[in-house]
Structures are given as C-alpha cells and as structure tokens.
C-alpha cells in the first residue's frame, strides 16, 4: 500500500516570488485518495481472512468472493521526510500491519518518475506481494502518475480508478473501476497494481483511540537510499526528468448570478440577461 502525506487543503497559497507552495501553518494529512485505497485494502484483507465459506458470503450479500487466506499482511510504504511518520502511523491505526518509510535527503525534489522508481525499490525490498494499492492521485500534485509508473517499474499489470475489488479467485481478481460512462469491470492476474478512486459517498474513517494506541506497537522501519541499493542518479532531483517551472493558481472566475424564481419568470430573466450581454439576439 503506497501513501503520501499532503497539506490539509486543496487551496494552498503560492509564494509568487519562488513559485512554490506555502506550507507553513498548513497541517499535513494522509492523502484522502490513499486513505480510501487503504480502507479498501483492509476490507479485502478482512474478507480474505474470513473463515466464512464463499457461498455463505454471497448469500449474505457481502458481494465479495475470495479464496480463504490467512497471514495476509498490509505493508504501507511512503517516501518522504521524517514527518511522514504521522501519515504512516495513521495507516497503522486504521489497520495496516507494518509501515516502511523511505526517507533520505537524496530523495528530495523527486518528480513522479523518481518517486515511482524509489517506491518500486522499497516494495521489492519488502518482498513478495499480491496487490499494490495506491490512491488515484495526491490532492497536492493531482498528477495521478505515480501508480501507473510504479506498475511499470515493477513490471506488473495495473487497473486504475478502482472503486471496489469485487472478487479474488486463485491468482485473479475482478475490480470495478469508475469511468465517465459508468463502471468498467476488469479481471486481472495478480500481482497487480490498483489505484483507488472513492465513491462520492466515501467518508474517511477516524481511527479508534484503541487502534491509535496499539499502532505504536506495530513494526515501523525507516530505509535510506543506501538500504535500497538503487542507482543514485535516479533518486530525487537528479532522477527527475520533469521540473516545476512555475506554480500559479487558476484565474479566479467571476461569481455567477443565481436566478431564483418560478420557472416561467426565471427563464424570462435568463433570456433577458443573455440578450443584454449580446450572447443571443
């Protein structure tokens, strides 16, 4: 499970002199897309650990089929500065089993290419896996590139915009993805990478206090660049083919006009305004 710690707002102010985001005074949170993906991973794990037979689960409307598995683990991994520990601790409190923080000064300035390279090294070092979950995108960069690039780096298939893992049978899974037209149902062989897209009804959970306390006892490791044994030129700024030239907010749109009246009067007012503004004759 890959996660990112992001500023707690989608309206971070921009320093016009340096073209960088002003993060002072903005608290950091676990990227909400990642939290959704994690909660889906936890759901999948719980069902896969369930000792309830498949047929019973289907009858009870659990709407999820899965081969019974035990000893599955959710390992959550993130690349970032030491403060990223907070986001990882939240993942542990939500139900992840282990956390790995990839943290080194040489990782600073990574674009999505260098980030996915570094994450792939970390994941390989962790060991074998069935599913890699990522959020669709991070709310600070909004690129939605790290997941797909990571799948490429790991040489595994990917299913993007997944709202739900529907079924796991043997080494295959079936995922429901959101599309503009509706849902896309994809069957994929494991190991596979999924990027999660929450439904509109999704509300991130607050971890219970008990889980917050027990999370402190779960394994948490920090790996630096030397631990990953990658190519130094591919880390951080040096390994990033893209660079941010300028960051600027989109132009502010003028406030719209709300016409509140009966449909007949409102439509007349609307036509009058369109004529007045020479949009129609």
């Amino acid at each position, binding site marked *: 499970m890959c996660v990112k710690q992001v500023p707690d707002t989608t309206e971070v102010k921009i320093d016009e002199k340096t073209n960088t985001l002003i993060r002072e005074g903005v608290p950091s949170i676990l990227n909400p897309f990642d939290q959704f993906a994690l909660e889906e991973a936890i759901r999948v794990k719980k069902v896969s650990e369930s000792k309830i037979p498949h047929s019973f689960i289907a009858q009870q409307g659990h709407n999820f089929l899965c081969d019974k598995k035990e000893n599955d683990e959710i390992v959550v991994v993130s690349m970032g500065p030491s403060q990223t520990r907070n986001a990882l601790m*939240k993942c542990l409190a939500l139900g992840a089993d282990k956390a790995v923080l990839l943290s080194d000064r040489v990782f600073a300035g990574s674009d999505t290419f260098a980030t996915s390279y570094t994450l792939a090294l970390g994941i390989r070092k962790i060991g074998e896996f069935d599913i890699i979950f990522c959020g669709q995108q991070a709310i600070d960069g909004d690129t939605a590139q790290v997941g797909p690039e990571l799948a490429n780096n790991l040489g595994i298939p990917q299913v993007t915009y997944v709202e739900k893992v529907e079924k796991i049978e043997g080494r295959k899974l079936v995922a429901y993805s959101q599309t503009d037209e509706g849902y896309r149902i994809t069957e994929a062989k494991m190991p596979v990478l999924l990027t999660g897209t929450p439904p509109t009804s999704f509300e*991130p959970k607050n971890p219970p*206090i*008990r889980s917050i*306390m027990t999370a402190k006892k779960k394994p948490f490791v920090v790996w630096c660049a030397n631990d990953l044994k990658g190519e130094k030129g591919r880390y951080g700024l040096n390994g990033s083919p893209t660079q941010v030239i300028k960051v600027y907010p989109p132009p502010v749109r003028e406030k719209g006009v709300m016409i509140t009246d009966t449909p007949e009067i409102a439509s007349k007012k609307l036509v009058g305004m369109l004529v007045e503004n020479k949009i129609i004759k």
Partner: protein
Amino acid sequence: MLRESVRGFCEKKIAPVAFEMEKTKEIPIEIVKGMAELGLLGCTASLDYGGSDLDAVSAGIIAEELGKTDPTGSIPVFYLVQAAWGHVLNKYGTDDAKKEIFPKVTKGKWFLGIATTESDAGSDIGATRTKIEKQGDEYVVNGEKMYISGVKEAVKHGGGHVTLARQTHKLGTRGMTMFYLPLNSKGITPTYMDDLGREGISCGGFSIENVKIPKHYIIGEENKGFYIVHEGYEFARGLIAVICAASALKSLENGIKYIKERKCFGVSIGKFEEIQFRLSEHYTRLNMLKEFAYKSLWLYDREKEGKTSRFEVSKNIAMAKMFASDWACNAINDVMQWQGAFGYSRECPDQAAWRAVRSFALAEGSKEIMKIIVARELLGKEFIAYK
C-alpha cells in the same frame, strides 16, 4: 493523530447537534454510539477490558476537543467522569468487576459515574453518612447521595457509580470504603433535579436502602476509600481545567468573529480598547490555564511512573483547577456582553457555555478546597485549620 481523530468526530458528529441538547435534555444516542466506536468512553480502562489504556495527558486532549465543541458542557462531563473514575476502577477494581463493567461502559451501553456528595457532605467528605457493612460474603449499603451526574443515564441505560461510604465509623476518614454501586439495584430510589446548565446530562440523587453489594464490587482495600477517591478527583480536576480553558477559548473565538463584524458608532467594536484589553487578558489567562492544566496531567502520569510525588501532583492539579471556572466564566461573560442583548438570549451558545463552566467551581472539589490543598503543601499539614 489522537487529536485529529477526535476533532474529526467532534466537527462532523457533535458540533451540528450539540446546542440542541439545551432543549432535548439528553445526549443523542448516535453521539454515545459514535463516542464508543471511537473509543472515548472508559478510555482509561486497560486494553484487556475494552479500553484504550490512555494516560492522563491523552485523556486531556480528548477533553479539550469535546470542551471546545459542546457549548452545553454535557458531553465533556459525560466523558470526563467515565475517564477519571474508569481510571480508578481500572487501577483498584477487582478483575471480575472490570470484566463485567468495562466492556459495557466502553461500548456506551452503561454509564459509569461518581457518587460521593451527600446533602451534608460535599467538600467535607469526612462527613459522609452513607454506610457500608459487611454481612457474610456480601456488603449492605444504606444512605443517600445527592447532586450526582448521570443518575438518569445509569437508571435508564444501565451502569452505576463509584461510591464512597463509611465502613468503620471510629476510624473517621480512614474508615471509608469505595465500591461500585449499580443504580438498577433493588433498594435504590432515584430523584432528579434541575441544574443551571449542562442540560444534556442529568443531575440527581438516590436513596440507598439495604442495597446488597457483592464482594467483587469493592474497589481497593476496605477502609482505604478516602485515599483512593482523591486519585479519581485529581484526574477529573485536571480534565476539568482543560475543559474550562477549551470552552472559554471557543467562546473567545465566537467573540472575536462578532467584534470584528459588529459596528457601533460607525466602527467595528473590536477597535475599542475596552474590548481589546479584555480580549487580550482573557486569551492570555486561558492559554496559561490550558498549558498549566496539561502540565498537571503530565505530572499525574509521571507520578504513576514513580517520577514525582503524590503531593506534588495534588498541589499542581489544585493550582490548575483553582481559577479554571472563574477565568472561563469571566471570559465567556465578556463575550456575552460584547454580543449585547443576543448574548443574554437562549439562542446564544455562549450563555450555555457560561452555565456549564460555572459548575466547575464546585464539581470534583470546590475552588476553595483547591486553595486549601495548595496552602497545605506550602505550609505543611500542621497548618490545616479543620484538622
């Protein structure tokens, strides 16, 4: 993360409905369930019994968020008594009692309160008249308790109160025993009273007539209740100091918004020095209070680790609570004043907050008792006037 989690719950679930408790006179069941799911109820109980094994500082963080969110003060009280007295039950209660009580308390099914006050015994606990007698393998209790929080909750939903009674009369305060008293016991007759504030949680009393208590409900050693009870009081006092600061700081936030917007004689009233000076003083005092309250809770935790003395904790906790209610009341009173006639109306959340924090000059030890404790530690026990 603890604060983030509690704040998320407070903002989403409690804030939209908290002020309605002024009219409904009870904490919505969905809030109780939500508090249980999040692990706020009986949070100081051990993990083995369904609690979260929280220390005093962590319990204070929860109290602060609740105090900031609920202007009626009902949910903070509902929380704090269960945190503080859950701590006492967890530390001194029998394994059987904890297995029976905590799973229900932490799931929000039972209420766990504290019942020491009587009509003639408040600050002077030594004047307690309720008696507990050993009869064979069980105990029999007779007496009466008054001004107790959560009587209706325990009678209606189940649960009971950590209670203090006199066991060996000739030993005075050294002859008191603490025990758990289920309020649905045969021989309990509850009464209810109308408090000035904290509308969402009941206040009442109950008479106790030949109520039988099993042995495993005894908390700590017999005749040691007077000592044990102070550990619960001190935990609760630290939490109360945090709640007073949080509630009044929230009122100041309301006040700041108001005085920036409200114009008088053509200018925002926030430009008047009369208001500015009061705002600055209240803000400073309340932050000092909050910081000191956390220090006192931290000392409480340090004492458990054997790193400070019991009396140092008592002194600091008393210092934290001594002015908590007064300072909070004064700040909220000024916020009400700034808002003019609206501040005096039932529509204003700040007046509910004022009525709530006013109670804390009395609850869990009056401010006068706090002064006596501090003086006792400074001058020595030989200067206690009433001994």
